[in-house]
């Protein structure tokens, strides 16, 4: 075999191997939590009879992430890159809940919003756990947040430069794609009734070198959660408007009562009116007699 042909075949094989390595290197990470798993654990047919909710305005609202954090991974990764990003950290959950709750403090029917840490929610705690939260935090309504995040990582054409070893440190050949859905389901705890729900979705695309891929995925994951939270706030406000209309149009489905003291007025009564009428009558009588 001539050397030229030998080099050509070797180069061809290398390209094929590189191409195969690129096409086979898709990784998928999936984190999620579910409101259904939390409220109806182990029930294939989750039926809970909801009563007519009595909404006592202004309400105390709780916000909490349902426990879960189920993680799955698929696709081949080199052993050095196989560490899985952890579930959404508590600090991030608290920041997201504060971000969402800030937008709802302005409503007159919301008296206060309690951000409830995950430690207070048991996996599969169901309504028994919600009743405990109701007592502990004095809340009437709770917004249960769940999420579903999938991160795909692919190697782009630039990943061929990894063969040079230095390329793995400087060339951003790893393309990642983070899709997140945050969901808020608002429940009236006492009646077990879901009042309304709203989703927030986000897609974040990024790239990284293999060396900082894990860090980049964490950054994109956080950014995607925050984007989804912003979208969730907009959708929640829309759903809230619709819910208000629904409450007005369907009084048989929702009963609204106002807590005493929230609405007040300076009211004169018969006592004052009689008093000043007497004074006025006297002045009129005096004027008539003078004339």
């Amino acid at each position: 075999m001539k050397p030229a042909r030998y080099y050509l075949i070797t180069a061809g094989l290398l390209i094929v191997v590189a191409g195969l390595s690129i096409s086979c290197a898709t990784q998928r990470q999936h984190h999620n939590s579910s409101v259904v798993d939390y409220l109806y654990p182990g029930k294939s047919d989750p039926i809970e009879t909801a009563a007519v909710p009595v909404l006592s305005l202004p309400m105390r609202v709780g916000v909490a992430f349902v426990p879960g954090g189920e993680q799955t991974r698929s696709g081949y990764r080199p052993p050095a890159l196989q560490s899985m990003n952890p579930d959404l950290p508590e600090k991030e959950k608290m920041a997201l809940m504060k971000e969402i709750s800030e937008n709802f403090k302005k409503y007159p029917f919301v008296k206060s919003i309690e951000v409830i840490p995950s430690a207070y929610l048991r996996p599969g705690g169901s309504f028994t756990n919600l009743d405990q939260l109701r007592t502990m935090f004095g809340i009437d309504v709770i917004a249960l947040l769940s999420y579903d995040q999938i991160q795909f990582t692919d190697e782009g054409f630039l990943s061929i430069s990894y063969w040079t070893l230095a390329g793995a440190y400087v060339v951003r050949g790893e393309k990642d794609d983070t899709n997140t859905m945050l969901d808020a389901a608002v429940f009236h705890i006492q009646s077990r009734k879901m009042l309304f729900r709203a989703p927030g979705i986000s897609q974040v695309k990024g790239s990284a070198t293999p060396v900082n891929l894990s860090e980049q995925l964490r950054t994109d994951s956080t950014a995607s959660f925050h984007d989804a939270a912003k979208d969730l706030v907009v959708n929640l406000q829309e759903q809230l408007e619709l819910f208000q209309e629904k409450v007005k149009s369907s009084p048989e489905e929702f009963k609204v009562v106002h807590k005493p003291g929230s609405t007040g007025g300076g009211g004169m009564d018969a006592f004052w009116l009689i008093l000043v009428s007497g004074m006025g009558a006297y002045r009129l009588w005096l004027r008539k007699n003078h004339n």
Partner: protein
Amino acid sequence: MATQKSQLRDSPIPVWTLMMVAAGVLAYVIPGSAPLIVYDRAAILSGEVWRLFTGNWVHFSLSHLVYDSATLGIVGWMIERRGYPYYKRLYILAPILIGVGLFAAQPDLQFYGGLSGMACGAVVYLTLHGLREDGPWRWICLTVLLLTSGKIVLESLTNGFAVVQVDNIPFAPVPLSHVLGALTALLIFCWPYVRALKRLGRKAAMFEFFARNY
């Protein structure tokens, strides 16, 4: 005892009082106007500060409007007819002080409405000036002033007599608005003394104040 009657101007039409009452009636009859001007703590916190002032003209029911407007109308008519000075200041200052006072002192109060704070202030203002006149009117004013003060104290101690249902809304009387209205009236009544105090010093100011009033 020098009568003040000769110094008083007789105003045939109580323009300011009519304006105050008319604003309350308009806020009640024009659909959609009350939500824009009612004292709403959350809206005030988000920047709609005019509600501190305008909330006084919103009423939650017809009887609420009738009682407040009638009381203010009668008392305001007498104040303007008698030509008592500075009553315009009462009409401007009272709603501001009531709104700001409620905002500062009653954070639990989400919504407030009613002209009664102003009406109460007007009653106190009328009776304080009435004390300067002679004859039965002076005694009538003294009696009304004592009854009014007693009622305000009683309301404050019991925090309103009851929660009244108005259009399915538990409507809590707010005695603080009456206190603030009365205090505004007292402040405006004593205003000439405060000015003299600055100008002449304490003893001379007191002398001038009592010499002018009694």
